[in-house]
């Protein structure tokens, strides 16, 4: 039951869907960022699962996972700094209020 790729992939897809729901539904930019982290983790689980069950060499998927982590860290740093900057400028982090570019 455990030792089978589809279990992991379903877990990943579920996590991804939850993250997507968060991205689409939440109004706080920080919450959106949190949801994005969840989606990234889903992708990471995918890589690890493929690595465990399919890949010719077990190092490759791990390296991919590590890179995703690094990118996530970079993304978080940039995203958070942008959020802070937005808050400083607009006094809110509600994404629905960020309407300066409305046509």
């Amino acid at each position, binding site marked *: 039951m455990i030792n089978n790729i589809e279990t992991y992939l379903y877990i990943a897809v579920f996590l991804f869907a*939850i993250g997507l729901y968060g991205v689409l539904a939440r109004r706080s930019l920080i919450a959106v960022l949190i949801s994005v982290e969840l989606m990234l983790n889903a992708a990471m689980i995918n890589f690890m699962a493929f690595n465990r069950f399919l890949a010719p060499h*077990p190092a490759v998927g791990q390296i991919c996972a590590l890179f995703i982590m690094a990118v996530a860290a970079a993304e978080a740093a940039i995203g958070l700094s942008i959020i802070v900057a937005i808050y400083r400028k607009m006094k809110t982090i509600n994404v629905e209020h960020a309407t300066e570019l409305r046509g």
Partner: protein
Amino acid sequence: MKFMMDLFSAEGMATLSFLGVVGLTFIGALIAVGARNIFHNVLGLALALFGVAGLFVYLNSPFVAMMEILIYVGAICIAICFAIMLSEPLYLPKPPRKPIKLLGAGLASGLIFAMLGLLMKKTTWVAAPERSTDWSITTLGHFLLTKYALIFEVISLVLLVAMLGAIVTARDGRGET
């Protein structure tokens, strides 16, 4: 009682703890998305990340699991906490949720879920014919510094640039009001 007995066998324990880890992940994820208090969201994220780390242990790579905890829980969650503290105060009243928006989001994510699930179901997963069994961290390190040295360097560069970018973006503008 057979089920209970199975449950307490070694394999049964493994299954049980696996279910526990998965449950931890899902519960954490649901809290991270669903709770109204932003701080609870972060805690839920941390919980989900612990769960994912557990999954990685089941996937034979304790090293990545450790990294997951170190980087995600240890760094990113803390950074998000800082961002929360630097932005909107928590005591402000929150506007009520709009059901239509939640419905739309749920629908869209449900669609994606359905699509990806279907995709997974329809695909037959074929393992590589020859598979190495070398899971050691030493090999990982070797790979990082030989075959994947370029991406390793590039990712370092990305991190550096991200750091600089974050500093530039987040700080007060020079002399601006």
